[in-house]
C-alpha cells in the first residue's frame, strides 16, 4: 500500500514536470508505463501490431489530456482508463471480429485446459487457462493480481462499480482455481 502511494507521488511529480515542458520527465513517464500498457492492450488485442498501434495512441492521448489529470487520483488508474477506452473504441469501430469486451461467454471452440494439457508445457498451459477465462473476469483478475491495482484503482480505470468488481473478482478467482485444478496445475 505504501509502495503504491510512493509510486503515485513519483508519478505526480513527473506529471508536474512533464506539464512544464520537461522532456526528460515526459520520456520517463513513457518509459515507466509503456510495458504495462502494452501488456494490458495486448490482453484484448491478441495481436502485436494492433497492440503497438493502440499503445502509441494511448500515449498520444495521455499527453493531450495530461492537464486534465486530477492529482487526487491514481495516475496509473487514469492511464489504464485511457487505454481501456481506446481498446473499446478500437473493438467497436475497427475490429468487430476482435474480442468483444462485453462478451463474458467462453467460446465453445476454445480447448479446455485438460485437452491442451498433454501437448503444452506448464507455462503454455497456464497461459491457456488464463486465456480461457471470460474477458471481463480475466480483466479484473489480472488488474488485481498481476498489475497489482487496488480496488479503487480498478474502479477508476474501468468505471465499474466497486460491488461489481468485487463480485467479478470473487467469481474469477473461483474459476481460475477450478481450471487450474482440472489442468492439474495445483
Amino acid at each position, binding site marked *: 500500500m505504501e509502495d503504491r502511494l510512493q509510486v503515485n507521488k513519483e508519478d505526480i511529480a513527473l506529471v508536474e514536470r512533464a506539464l512544464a515542458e520537461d522532456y526528460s520527465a515526459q*520520456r520517463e513517464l513513457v*518509459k515507466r508505463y509503456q510495458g504495462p500498457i502494452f501488456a494490458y492492450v495486448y490482453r484484448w488485442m491478441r495481436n502485436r501490431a494492433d497492440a*503497438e498501434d493502440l499503445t502509441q495512441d494511448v500515449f498520444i492521448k495521455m*499527453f493531450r489530456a495530461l492537464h486534465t489529470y486530477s492529482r487526487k487520483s491514481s495516475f496509473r488508474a487514469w492511464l489504464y482508463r485511457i487505454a481501456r477506452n481506446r481498446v473499446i473504441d478500437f473493438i467497436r469501430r475497427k475490429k468487430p471480429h476482435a474480442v468483444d469486451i462485453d462478451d463474458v461467454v467462453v467460446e465453445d471452440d476454445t480447448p479446455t485446459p485438460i485437452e491442451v494439457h498433454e501437448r503444452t508445457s506448464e507455462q503454455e498451459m*497456464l497461459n491457456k487457462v488464463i486465456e480461457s477465462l471470460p474477458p471481463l473476469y480475466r480483466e479484473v483478475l489480472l488488474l488485481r493480481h498481476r498489475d497489482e491495482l487496488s480496488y479503487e484503482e480498478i474502479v477508476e480505470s474501468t468505471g465499474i462499480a466497486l460491488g461489481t468488481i468485487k463480485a467479478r473478482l470473487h467469481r474469477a478467482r473461483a474459476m481460475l482455481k477450478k481450471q487450474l485444478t482440472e489442468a492439474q496445475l495445483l
Partner: protein
Amino acid sequence: MRDNTSALVMDCAESRKWIELRFDGEEIPDAITRKLDKHLASCEGCRLWATQMESALAKLQMITEPLPTQQFKTRLMRELGLSPVPVWLRWAGGVLAGLSAAWLLAVTLLGDRLLGAAREGIPVVSRLLRIGQYLIPAGSGSSLLTSATEIGIIILGGAVMLIVLGILARRMVNRAQRTRPAEARSA
C-alpha cells in the same frame, strides 16, 4: 469439511470469504481473525482450499505476457517527439559553439589589423570587426599579427557563418521534434 452456521463458530463459506479478503491485504478485525484461525485449525477442507487459492493467485505472476520490442520503444519515443538528441550531434554542437567563441575572441582582440583586409570582402566579418574596434582600442595586440593569421581568421569568418547555420538547423530539428507533444496537448 464441516458447515457450522452458529454465530460463534465460523462456517466454511464465511471462512473462505475472509480468506479471500486476507489475500487482498484487507484488514480483518481481531475477533474475526481468531474465529477464522480456529476454523482453519479444525477444517482440513478450508485449509486445502486456502492453500490452493494462494497457489492459484501466485501463478498469475508466472504467466508470460509479451513485452514491447526495443524497436517499438524507439519508434514510440520518435512518434511522440521525445527521442533524445544523439550524442554525436551534442558533441558537434559543442565543438561548433567553441569554434565560434574562439573566432569572435580573435576578431575582437585583433580587429584593427583585420579591418582593412576584410572590409571589401565579407560584409558580416567587416561588421564584426568594427564591433571589435569599438570594444578594443586600436593598436592593442596588433603587433602580433601576420598575414597568415589574417587569412586564417577571415577563413574562420566564413566557417562561423556555416556554424551558425548549422546551429540554427539543429535548433529547428529539435523544435520540430518537440512540438509534436506540445501540439497534442494543446489540441
